[in-house]
């Protein structure tokens, strides 16, 4: 593998057979990931119909099939493929940010009670169920077709929320007929649940603002209390990915396609299996958006009851998704796995009030560090994409072996960060130094021309999945 540095934040992996395009990795030397992640960039570059480059974002790290932090687009009219592995198991995993009409100083007297209420109101972990008990498959069908729109129509939110969601809360083209029985059964019980692993609900405060005008347009001001929710499409999304990867693993030979890693299983976008996956994926994406909508409503109730404060949705973004998009006159299937779309100002898909400023992008750090609000920039690279988080550097096993959950909570609480975990080891697995430095990741994203900074948020309390 020949790696050439083109700028301080851009490295090129020269194309060598069987790569169809080069690799481009937006990192600094300090953020250069492990060899396995770069090899996965090379593997993705072999996919039929891939155009431009196989891209890696600044938080790139070793995944399975696609790297996490990978972006790849295929030309639909040239036999380009769709790969469920390029979206990931947790379809439409994403981040939602809500801003409170409350300064952080106003939270101090009620913080413990608020955290206890959020702890109780946020289903998560093993067998936790969900906020919204759907009566049956007919209602789930509407969640799959209408996403957050159905949740809001059913009374779980405000009409304005939908203006502040990607795709106005529902991805078009959802086809519940392509969602298997097992996925439906797993999905029925989990609408409005956080999950486990790296998912969280965090109470934060705006610590620093880098662009006053954009921050004001997003509804953010210094010292303001915010709530960030990170979760996805739960068991339903995982089952859809599993079902379609297994089907494509068997079907791709019929299309003459071979891949260097079975998790890259793929078929042409314009094929029965490709259309079937995209229909099921859109349904899972809608489930993910409804899921975050329900968790946001649970947080709103807790804030209203404990602090007398309201929460306004800033935006809701996905960082695991494939979308058919127009770029330079071509219809491309853009896979973002652990990468966030970052639309530039005046993009037609932006809501009118945000159009002059670009798309809000949220980058969660870790429990002990910071999170960032970014926005898209004109001329952004990798089909208008940027990073999605800090990116792991340690396995869960390594992290849990070197720190105990109790020690970690004591350390965080010593710094004024309230912690409500669901297991000690789960907490230890998510220790801050198991991740890259989010400040460095964001600096590389800005330096590479992928986005620009709007605000920096710091944690006050975390409800951990």
């Amino acid at each position, binding site marked *: 593998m020949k790696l050439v540095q083109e700028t301080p934040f851009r490295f090129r992996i020269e194309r060598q057979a069987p790569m169809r395009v080069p690799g481009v990795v937006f990192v600094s030397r300090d953020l250069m990931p492990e060899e396995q992640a770069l090899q996965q960039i090379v593997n993705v570059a072999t996919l039929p119909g891939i155009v431009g480059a196989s891209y890696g974002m600044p938080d790139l790290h070793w*995944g399975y099939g696609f790297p996490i932090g990978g972006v790849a687009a295929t030309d639909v009219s040239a036999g380009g493929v769709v790969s469920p592995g390029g979206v990931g198991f*947790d379809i439409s995993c994403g981040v939602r940010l809500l801003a409170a009409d409350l300064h952080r100083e106003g939270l101090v007297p009620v913080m413990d009670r608020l955290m206890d209420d959020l702890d109780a109101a946020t289903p998560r972990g*093993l067998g936790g169920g969900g906020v919204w008990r759907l009566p049956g498959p007919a209602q789930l069908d509407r969640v799959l077709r209408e996403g957050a729109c159905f949740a809001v129509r059913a009374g779980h939110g405000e009409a304005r929320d939908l203006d502040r969601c990607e795709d106005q809360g529902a991805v078009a083209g959802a086809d519940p007929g392509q969602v298997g029985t097992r996925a439906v059964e797993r999905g029925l019980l*989990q609408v409005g649940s956080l999950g*486990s692993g790296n998912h969280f609900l965090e109470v934060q405060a705006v610590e620093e603002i880098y662009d006053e005008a954009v921050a004001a347009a997003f509804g953010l001001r210094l010292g303001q209390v915010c709530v960030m929710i990170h979760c996805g499409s739960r*068991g339903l999304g995982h089952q859809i990915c599993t079902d379609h990867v297994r089907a494509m693993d068997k079907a791709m030979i019929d299309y003459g396609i071979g891949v260097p890693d*079975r998790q890259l299983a793929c078929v042409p976008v314009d094929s029965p299996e490709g259309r079937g996956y995209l229909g099921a994926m859109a349904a899972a994406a809608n489930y993910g958006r409804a899921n975050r909508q329900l968790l946001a409503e649970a947080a709103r109730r807790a804030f209203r009851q404990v602090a007398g404060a309201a929460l306004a949705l800033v935006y809701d973004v996905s960082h695991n998704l494939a979308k058919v998009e127009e770029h330079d006159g071509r219809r491309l299937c853009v896979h973002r796995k652990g990468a966030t779309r970052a639309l530039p100002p005046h993009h037609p898909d932006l809501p009118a009030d945000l159009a002059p400023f670009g798309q809000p992008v949220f980058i969660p750090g870790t429990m002990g560090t910071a999170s960032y609000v970014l926005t898209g920039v004109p001329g952004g690279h990798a089909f208008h994409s940027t990073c999605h988080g800090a990116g792991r550097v340690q396995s869960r*096993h390594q992290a849990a072996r070197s720190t105990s959950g109790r020690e970690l909570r004591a350390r965080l609480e010593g710094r004024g960060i309230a912690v409500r975990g669901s297991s000690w080891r789960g907490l230890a*697995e998510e220790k801050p130094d198991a991740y890259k430095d989010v400040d460095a990741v964001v600096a590389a994203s800005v330096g590479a021309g992928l986005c620009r900074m709007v605000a920096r948020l710091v944690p006050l309390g975390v409800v951990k999945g």
Partner: protein
Amino acid sequence: MARPHGGRGPVGGRGHRSLPHTADVRLEAWAPTAAECVAEAVRAMIDGFADLSRAERHGTRTLHVDPAPPDEQLLTVLDEVIYLMDTAARVPCEIDAHEDEAGLWLTLGMTDVAAVPQIGAVPKAVALHGLRFNHGPHGWVCAVTLDV
């Protein structure tokens, strides 16, 4: 249920361990027969997130897997255990496995997830990335990547 073995690896007998991987969870299991190796992989998966030291069996579930390549049988079993956790809120706390000409048979002693302390991130899916299931000089060895 056995606790995870340390770093000794598959050098005989049976056991399991987790392997370093920055994406979620990767585990390795080994045993003298393919059926026992599948059972050991189930134990490895559950040991990663549940403390079954005080679990009591409430019911039994029999799982039959048709004859197929060993890696396909392994996927079927792990998929089934994940599905049962999400839909029936049950998790195996005792596992027996054997194989005959009709395929693979598992007898799973089940317990309620609500009664089990959670000690780690809960698996949601099994990846095909790096899936291995081989017979070697010390018996059967499998390696699996789980999404949590």
